[in-house]
């Protein structure tokens, strides 16, 4: 086995383009990264930066028409891009599973939650009815749902948002996947419930020896829960590195802007926030230059015509895409 095959996930030059009425929309524009086993990696970026499309493309879930996917996604050595539905289906659930952004839409509202877990187990693992029910109750218990026997018969609408998200996690974990893609698993939940769900994911990751991709727009969620972070902007990775390095030693101006514009609990009241002028670009009208250039205070002529590729920073594994990177100083996050 080559080194490449040992890796859980190797993504190379992955691009997803939607062919829309308004033209070609490069939602993911050439993304490369890889992932070790038993790791949690965070993908952060603002709305529309391509986080969901990237996760769905890794999973091999895309609409059948009006989309072109190029590049490569090796999942434990298996090429997902261009694979047949049958081949992908064999891997869904067991090798890779996904938690979707909106828990309400990923559950069937007119089917008992227990039955929804059962179905996954019977279809994917060929379990008998009796075994599947027993296992489903076990899974409900595993994700911390009180009185699982009784909740087995509940409909999604009868559960709170936090409990529905636990059910979604139970379904994703039903066939013990090696890689879990969690797309905004706690967005819309209260902070106390968010903390419960994030703790649950961390605990399950350890217990089941899986790897997790934690997709979020909330920097607070990834700060203490991941070992590596990918920062996305307009469909591309603009910075990637260890969580600590991305927070404290980032080189790309957008990363800094993103960190500085977030209000902090530890700041005094009425602390003036640093803002980035404007908003993210229209993906239908991307130029050849750096897509952050119209909002970047360091932009030069070169930035507007030539796109910076990812280049290595000092720390191994830390890369950034910028022509005029921030100096190599360690910034403290705390004020």
């Amino acid at each position, binding site marked *: 086995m080559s080194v490449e095959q040992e890796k859980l996930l190797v993504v190379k030059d992955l691009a997803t383009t939607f062919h829309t009425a308004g033209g070609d929309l490069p939602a993911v524009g050439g993304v490369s990264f890889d992932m070790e086993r038993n790791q949690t990696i965070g993908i952060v970026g603002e709305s529309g930066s391509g986080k969901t499309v990237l996760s769905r493309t890794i999973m091999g879930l895309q609409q059948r028409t009006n989309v072109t996917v190029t590049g490569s996604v090796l999942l434990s050595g298996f090429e997902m891009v261009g694979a047949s539905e049958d081949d992908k289906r064999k891997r869904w659930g067991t090798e890779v599973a996904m938690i979707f952004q909106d828990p309400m839409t990923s559950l069937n509202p007119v089917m008992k939650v227990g039955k929804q877990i059962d179905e996954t187990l019977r279809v994917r693992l060929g379990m008998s009815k009796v075994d599947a029910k027993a296992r489903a109750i076990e899974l409900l218990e595993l994700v911390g749902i009180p009185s699982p026997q009784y909740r087995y018969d509940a409909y999604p609408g009868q559960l709170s948002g936090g409990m529905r998200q636990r059910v979604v996690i139970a379904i994703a974990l039903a066939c013990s996947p090696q890689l879990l893609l969690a797309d905004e698993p706690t967005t819309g939940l209260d902070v*106390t419930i968010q903390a419960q769900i994030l703790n649950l994911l961390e605990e399950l990751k350890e217990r089941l020896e899986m790897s997790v991709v934690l997709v979020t727009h909330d920097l607070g969620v990834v700060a203490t829960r991941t070992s590596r972070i990918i920062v996305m902007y307009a469909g591309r990775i603009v910075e990637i590195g260890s969580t600590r390095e991305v927070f404290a030693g980032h080189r790309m101006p957008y990363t800094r802007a993103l960190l500085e514009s977030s209000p902090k609990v*530890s700041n005094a009241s009425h602390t003036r926030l640093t803002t980035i002028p404007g908003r*993210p670009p229209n993906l239908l009208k991307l130029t050849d230059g750096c897509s952050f250039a119209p909002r970047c205070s360091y932009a030069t002529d070169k930035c507007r015509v030539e796109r910076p590729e990812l280049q290595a920073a000092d720390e191994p594994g830390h890369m950034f895409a910028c022509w005029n990177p921030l100096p190599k100083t360690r910034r403290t996050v705390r004020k």
Partner: protein
Amino acid sequence: MTETREPLLKVSDLVVTFGMGRHQVAAVAGVSFEIYEGETLGLVGESGCGKSTTGKALMRIVEPSSGTIELDGTDVIAQKGKALRNIRTRMQMIFQDPISSLNPRRRIKDIVAEPLDCWKSVTGDERDVLISDLLTKVGIDPKVYGNRYARQFSGGQCQRISIARSLAMRPKLLICDEMVSALDVSVQAQILNLLEDLKHEYGLTLLFIAHDLAVVKNVSDRVAVMYLGRICEIGPADTLYEAPAHPYTKFLLGAALEADPDSPVHGEVLGGEPPSPLNPPSGCRFRTRCPFATEKCVEIEPQLEEVAPGHHVACHYPLTISKK
């Protein structure tokens, strides 16, 4: 905030109940607070605790079942007809969903002028100048965008337009309900800074409702924490965040995630979920999740009491507070 000032808004024992089938739910179950002129009071708490209902009751978008609301010495609840509409112009509310709260088929400058046109208080050229001025203040060029329709704008721009509209009648009190929750951080920062600037320029007093604890800390002078229809703690923002005295506040703040890998990993996570407001627990409403609950908490409902100047807590056993 130690000087003795007259409150602009004084809310006492506010109760709002909704009928749910044969049952009554007290979404707001006896809430009292004051907001002083020129300050921002933050209102936080988990989903369903009654934050929006409190804001809507102040505006009388929903009718309070009991209690009193005084704005600048006027009893808001006693007002009817024209007088009610009149007092409503002194309070304005901005909602979470910026796009759906603006009529997509109207031009931006007419949306901003809605309250003026409704009252016919300012007309003709004077009106147009005022509208242009308001749009400029919120960072939207009236010459370029004034004639466009709301549906052509992004969430952040729509929220700027909502702000401009809310300022048209020169209100004294602005109620912001999750006004930045749907926005991306970079846009959120722009709107929060804008709000701070306009607050000073227009001499506004703010009730800032949000579930994001960092955002609330950033804009507020004082913060009130709600749980299941009641305020469990209220006090100066910096003190309350540094030394929360109510167990619920402590857990809530402990669960807030700081965008900092070196932030302490919070040990204790609050278990369970808030009970249904249909059937609130006896005694202290937090007792079903509180690790410090005793018999007394089951039997007696704690009332807000001052534990430090301006810092009130409703708990039989408030957490360590430096007793000055």
